[in-house]
């Protein structure tokens, strides 16, 4: 049996590897599996990715970031599910949709990731000092059938690691 000439060293290395894997995949890189079509074609249903939980330790979410958002407003609770959405609105801004495109303070935004047709018209919403606006890349369905809207900074778990087809 090939355990090496120094089994003690091998076992120590194995233990370190196991502990490091647990720490990394529990506290740093959260493995996720995408379910649903709301982020098509950027992320496909069934795709595997990671959420980088340290992405915003030093900075703040930026417009265009794809992030994982808790379902529950309770920032300390355990979770098995996340929403995967793109940040389109930053704190203090007024967000609306006109002809399928997001408008920030009334100004339509360039959205190179928007590959599928959309005709959304959604009235303005003003974001609070800790609020962000999130929406998926697939806006082919009516807005009331797509999970989009405002959540606070504390609900953001992290930023998706592997960029999709943008």
């Amino acid at each position, binding site marked *: 049996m090939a355990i090496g000439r120094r089994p003690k060293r091998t076992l120590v290395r194995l233990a370190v590897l196991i502990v490091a894997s647990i720490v990394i995949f529990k506290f740093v890189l959260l493995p996720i599996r995408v*379910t649903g079509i709301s982020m098509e074609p950027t992320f496909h249903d069934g795709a595997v990715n990671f959420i980088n939980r340290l992405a915003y330790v030093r900075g703040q979410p930026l417009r265009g970031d794809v992030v994982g958002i808790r*379902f*529950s407003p309770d920032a300390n*609770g355990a979770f098995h*599910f996340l929403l995967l959405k793109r940040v389109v609105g930053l704190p203090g801004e007024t967000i609306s949709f006109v002809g399928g495109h997001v408008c920030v303070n009334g100004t339509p935004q360039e959205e190179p990731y928007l590959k599928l047709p959309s005709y959304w018209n959604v009235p303005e919403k003003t974001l609070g000092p800790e609020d962000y606006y*999130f929406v998926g890349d697939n806006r082919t369905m009516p807005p009331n*059938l797509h999970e989009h*809207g*405002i959540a606070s900074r504390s609900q953001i778990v992290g930023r998706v690691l592997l960029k999709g087809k943008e």
Partner: protein
Amino acid sequence: MKLIVRLILLAGLLALGVWAWGFFFPTPQKIIEKRLVKLARLASFSSKDGNIKRLADTERISLLLARNIQVVVDLPGGRETMFDNREELLQALLAARPVVKDLVVQFTDIGVVVNQDRQNATALLTVKAKIGVEPDWVVEELRFTFKNTNDDWLITRLETVKPLR
């Protein structure tokens, strides 16, 4: 060695004692969590279930609900559904079973907060449901409000919590 064995036995006894205390004297949080897990199990059904089982499950569900329970939930497809009392809700559940045929309901990430008066409590959880032959799971966040009525924690309100407002 004998000392180590004794210490291990002592630790084991302590662990058993803690477990027994939790089993025979559960906290309100534990009681409510158990009720919610039971509710999810009773709410699930299969087309193979007989009528007697369906009626029995519905009767058991009614024992978990307050008479004047209020329900405001979003169903798949964006429809909001409201019920004002237990009988209305149970009638809807019985009517839904022949139509839906199969339903699997699971509650996860249950967080229970009991008020200081220990008479009211709120539970936030994520519900995962598979309806009929649909391959995808429906995932929603739900808030349950409980009231302690004669040492019985009954559900007085159930509502969908939208993660994005």
